[in-house]
């Protein structure tokens, strides 16, 4: 419980740092913030080991951190430094750490679905009980690969958990203007275990994922979870620079702010006496310090050697 809280807080503080860094002009590329959705990454990844592969999205910092990715290396990556987890070659949309099963954030909407299915197939063949997880958005659920992967995963009984993060927006389009029906019904058509959970309730996510991950590890095949949540920030942090009209009201956002997943888990922890308010506060201070230091280190780190690039396109072959 506390571990989940720590993860969520780590994500939040890291992203607040990146938000501020972006607006201060310290980052070369854009960032898509996960703030408000932390319970999903944390609740699902709590069940996973380094060996379990996860595929993520353009909004991937949270998944990376929840899966145990190094925050220092991630910040350095977004800062485009040689010390970055991808040596500055990928940036925010491509943070990946294969040693921890983070097989990558991805700039192509929906791309993680097929990649995770392939990873699940590898896991299945290895018979070591690994499970693959794909996080994807409600917008991504409109890409045909979603159905294709449901089909293959069901047929082959792949150890795969598909987690759709329904945050009510697909870029600037409200979900119901681009998504017909209920996304979960698309998965139900394949008769696999499906659940719809409150994505701002870490405990609920944790529970749904527990069942799905266990099933997959035991050879029971794929499951689907739709986590209902809300994107508190914009599609990406650069939108304020070019948006000429508003696409949503402050009044729409406000109620969701009250559903803050970190505060909710915090209350739950306190109510259940897991620890005291002071402990949570101390944790926050610790994390803030860590992230501030990480950002400073990232800022001070050297940019990548351009020649590196030529060794990275191929393994053992020049491009």
């Amino acid at each position, binding site marked *: 419980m506390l571990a989940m809280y720590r993860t969520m807080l780590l994500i939040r503080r890291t992203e607040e740092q990146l938000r501020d860094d972006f607006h201060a002009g310290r980052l070369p590329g854009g960032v898509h913030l996960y703030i408000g959705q932390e319970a999903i990454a944390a609740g699902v990844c709590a069940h996973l080991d380094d060996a379990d592969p996860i595929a993520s999205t353009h909004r991937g910092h949270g998944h990376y951190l929840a899966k145990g990715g190094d925050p220092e290396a991630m910040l350095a990556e977004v800062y485009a430094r040689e010390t970055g987890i991808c040596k500055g070659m*990928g940036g925010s949309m491509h943070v990946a750490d294969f040693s921890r099963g983070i097989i990558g954030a991805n700039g*192509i909407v929906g791309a993680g679905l097929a990649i995770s299915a392939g990873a699940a197939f590898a896991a299945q063949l290895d018979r070591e009980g690994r499970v693959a997880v794909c996080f994807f958005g409600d917008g991504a659920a409109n890409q045909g690969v979603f159905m294709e992967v449901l089909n293959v995963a069901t047929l082959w009984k792949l150890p795969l958990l598909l987690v759709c993060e329904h945050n009510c927006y697909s870029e600037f389009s409200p979900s119901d203007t681009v998504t017909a029906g209920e996304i979960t019904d698309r998965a139900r058509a394949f008769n696999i275990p499906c659940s719809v959970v409150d994505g701002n309730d870490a405990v609920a996510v944790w529970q749904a994922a527990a069942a799905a991950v266990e099933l997959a590890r035991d050879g029971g095949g794929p499951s689907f979870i739709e986590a209902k949540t809300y994107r508190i920030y914009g599609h990406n942090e650069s939108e304020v620079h070019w948006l000429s009209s508003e696409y949503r009201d402050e009044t729409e956002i406000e109620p969701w702010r009250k559903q803050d997943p970190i505060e909710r888990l915090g209350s739950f922890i306190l109510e259940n006496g897991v620890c005291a308010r002071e402990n949570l506060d101390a944790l926050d201070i610790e994390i803030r310090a860590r992230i501030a230091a990480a950002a400073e280190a990232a800022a001070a780190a050297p940019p990548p050697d351009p020649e590196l690039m030529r060794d990275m396109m191929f393994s053992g072959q020049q491009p």
Partner: protein
Amino acid sequence: MAKKRLIQAINDTLFAEMERDPKVILFGEDVEISMFGDTKGLHERFGPNRIRNTPICEATLTGMAVGAAAGGYRVILHLMFSNFIYTGFDAIANQMAKLRLMTGGQIKLPITVIAGYGGGRSTAAQHSDTPYPLLMNLGGVNVAVPSTPADAAGLLKTAIRGDNPTFYLEAGGRGGERGEVPDDDFTVPFGSARVCRPGTDVTLVSVGAMMKPTLQAAGALAGQDIDAEVIDCRTLVPLDTETIIASVAKTGRIVIVDEARDRCSAASHIAAVVSDEAFTHLKAPVKRITVPNVAMPYAPNVEKTVIPNQEQIAAVTESLVNNPDK
């Protein structure tokens, strides 16, 4: 004449063409709010039938463009970033580029696909490709890559009014370039390159966002007594090989600047045409300045090393003119 930004010229042209012909429709992801500004305001003016946000489903959008065009509409499909051309590539390569021949010429396919291309803004490998070499090889689609606001307007009109599929590639965030745009209803024909700067010593051929560093390099070379002729291809399909060959016949030397990866680039193809059809005029090797065969790196300092720039163009050209034997 009015001075405007390239993206503004596109936006104005879309307004004008939709006003002009009620059969023009436009759809794509978030075209209503318009991330690049090119489709801004169209939704308010023309309503949801003619301007429509779509779900994220590029494979379907490209196929729908074919179906709607076959159904009598002039379709503009906005694919946002050029990398998403790959996501919708099936219907592009297997339908759009082939359907007319396969049906014995029964149909017209008035389709304009708009997408932003190219690097330079740390958008990393999946939002920065320069995909025109692939499109050029397909055979059945035109490719227009405007470099000035006036050409942006003139080529877009030709694309929309034309009866064949055209990929209209915008130089991404670099749509800010300003220039004069005539007020009258002019068009720029396809397959007609523009000699932007006459010269006698060497021909510099380029297109799109590479025109700027190429012209700057030509300016710098003038200071070194090298008189470069600069050609903007404007469309890569059809390609105006005549203008290029005529120039090489005069200068005897050519440097081709291209933002695409080198292997099978537009530059490769132009080099091939020149080394065949203008061979007897050539006094020096045919030079290409292209992006190396890598995915676009995120780090700005690394990205900078892969995109052709003024210094590189000037240096290669200078050495070509002064040391013809390489």
